[in-house]
């Protein structure tokens, strides 16, 4: 790589002049996707990092211009493919905001249930892959990974019973949702979240006071409060650095104001703090799912008739931005409409894209092994980054 420049090199005064440029990715077991980091190493310490993205660019924003409002929600899941429901929700919320479409209460509650179940599934995957990166694919990390994947499978089975698919749900639709819950789903979901709640206790017992885990994560990758606000991270990253900001509380959407839940905030700003934030979010999501199931109102699931043709939804001229609290942070969708069946321009605000911007500030000074711990706690999904 003779022609790449590292933007910012932190001089550590190491004294040694042996600087090794090492490539981490794009094919790497712990880059969480296709992501290339060019590390400048002095011994084992990273002195500079240059992040290269764009390996997963699939022209989603152009797709948004060529597909209609009816077709796009089915593939919106491909941006954040780990927490798929939130991307769909952002898109249809933006459309509903421009066209001032009311969403019936039952549909709002169903959207909340789907979003929170998806958050549980996403955090299961986060915990599993993070421990996998830190513990080795042939080691204790793989054990935690397989346990959390076992739980994620249960949640995905519930979503499969609801929609029929495991990733490209197509659950959301302009005006409401596309599917209603089948018979017996309520009881199954309660059983699933109860089971997961008990298993979270097991994970915490395995990791919480485990000296090895704590030694790997405490004090590592500290994002200070000022840095977090300056760079613009969101989600568990900013809540782990002491800023109490959650879109569900700041700008309640889809009747989140009806539910009673705690937004966890930690002040340490290191990987352990972000871990704590996400573990609390696990339990709070389960709480929200239970409340939503208890209070599910009867009624229609969509304020518009069922989809019969491809150009059915016409949105008046205008523009709108809708944001939701995804599992990784604030996911936003900005739409410009010119009155036709397709948007004129669509832009995604990917949570992971902004979160990754913090890497060059926090990685230098750490060892190579810490880089994977930091990547895991930032938890990027490259569908969101590259779109």
């Amino acid at each position, binding site marked *: 790589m003779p022609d790449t420049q590292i933007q910012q090199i932190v001089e550590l005064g190491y004294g040694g002049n042996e600087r090794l440029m*090492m490539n981490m990715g794009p094919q790497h077991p712990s880059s969480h996707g296709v992501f290339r980091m060019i590390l400048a190493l002095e011994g084992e310490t990273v002195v500079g990092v240059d992040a290269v993205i764009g390996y997963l660019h699939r022209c989603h924003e152009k797709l948004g211009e060529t597909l209609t409002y009816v077709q796009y929600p089915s593939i919106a899941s491909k941006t954040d493919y780990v927490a798929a429901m939130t991307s769909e929700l952002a898109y249809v919320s933006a459309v509903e905001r421009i066209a001032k479409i009311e969403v019936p209460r039952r549909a709002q509650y169903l959207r909340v249930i789907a979003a929170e179940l998806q958050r549980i599934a996403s955090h299961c995957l986060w915990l599993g892959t993070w421990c996998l990166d*830190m513990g080795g694919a042939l*080691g*204790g990390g793989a*054990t935690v990974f*397989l346990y959390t994947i076992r739980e994620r499978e249960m949640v995905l089975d519930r979503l499969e019973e609801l929609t029929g698919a495991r990733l490209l749900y197509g659950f959301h639709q302009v005006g409401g949702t596309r599917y209603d819950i089948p018979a017996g789903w309520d009881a199954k979901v309660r059983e699933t979240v109860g089971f997961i709640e008990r298993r979270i206790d097991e994970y915490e017992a395995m990791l919480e006071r485990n000296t090895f885990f704590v030694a790997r994560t405490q004090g590592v990758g500290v994002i200070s409060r000022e840095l977090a606000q300056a760079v613009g991270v969101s989600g568990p990253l900013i809540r782990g650095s002491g800023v109490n900001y959650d879109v569900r509380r700041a700008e309640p959407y889809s009747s989140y104001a009806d539910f009673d839940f705690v937004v966890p905030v930690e002040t340490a700003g290191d990987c352990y703090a972000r871990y704590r934030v996400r573990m609390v979010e696990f339990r709070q999501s389960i709480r929200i799912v239970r409340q939503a199931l208890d209070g599910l109102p009867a009624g229609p699931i969509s304020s518009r008739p069922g989809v019969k043709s491809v150009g059915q939804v016409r949105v008046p001229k205008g523009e709108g931005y809708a944001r939701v609290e995804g599992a990784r942070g604030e996911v936003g969708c900005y739409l410009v409409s010119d009155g036709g069946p397709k948007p004129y321009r669509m832009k995604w605000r990917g949570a992971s894209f902004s979160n990754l911007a913090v890497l060059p500030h926090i990685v230098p000074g750490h*060892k190579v092994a810490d880089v994977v711990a930091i990547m895991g706690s930032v938890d990027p999904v490259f569908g969101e980054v590259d779109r």
Partner: protein
Amino acid sequence: MALPPVAWHALVAFVVLNAVVLLVTYVTLLERKFAARMQSRIGPYYVGRPHGWLQPIADALKLMIKEDIVPAAADRGVYNLAPVVFLVPCMLIFATIPFAPGLGVADLNIGVLFFLAVSSLEIVGLFMGGWGSNNKYALLSAMRAVNQIISYDLPFVFAALVPVLLAGSLQMSAIVDAQQGLAFVFYPVLGQLAFVAYLVATLAAENRVPFDILEAESELVAGFRVEYSGMKFALIQLGEYAHMLGTSFLGALLFLGGWLGPGPAWLGPFWFLGKALLIFLIVTWVRWSFVRIRVDQILAISWKLLLPATLVLLLATGLVVATRGAGGV
């Protein structure tokens, strides 16, 4: 037997070598099934249903017919020689282990010393592999390996020396005989602590999680082995697992009483195998339960915790032996 001693020893060596290779191959299957059950899944299943009995054979065949890819800029001599230099010490350690009284290739009167000295020669092969691959990941891993294995060989040796002191001899069969009637690991405090220190040092000397920073699949993608494929990779795997098994045998011999156990004398080797596999399973159990720790933390554990602890243990053992008289408990 009418065979001259050289031929006899050669025959026994041949049998032992083949037995070790077979045992190592099937121990990988044991590890995979054990690890799988701990992770709520079944391990190898399809090849030789229902328990995957033929999986190791399938793996061995696959590795034999795989293409041998050599990186273009690799240092050919070093690269090609590294697996052999890695494998030979790992196989040689089995020469000194007696599987039953009188049943062994060579029951040297400096058995334990030979074992410990030869087993630490594998680091040379490891470094050759990392250097000769012309790959930055392999190089990083090899440098970490030199750091780690050398740091942990010292506590390993000291922990292994505790039963040697208590028995008063370096000869392996003599150490087992000294444990007649009692098991050293239940020797008050000293034996148990030495056993724990031995297990921890084994984990580190074998590059097992939580000390497997040198291979660290999620960072260095197989470490020094990353550029090896086919039969060379098979040799390296064989060497690693053979070393693992060898130290398990040594641990069973030094701490758990070797071939001693209730029942007739011909049951001895089976007891020995069972005890060695028990140590192996404990190491596997630890391996699949923890995340790994960073290399500077590993070295800190070794130099600041384990080495002083084993030194103190050795001193205490020496005091005990001196006040009690040498040559027996």
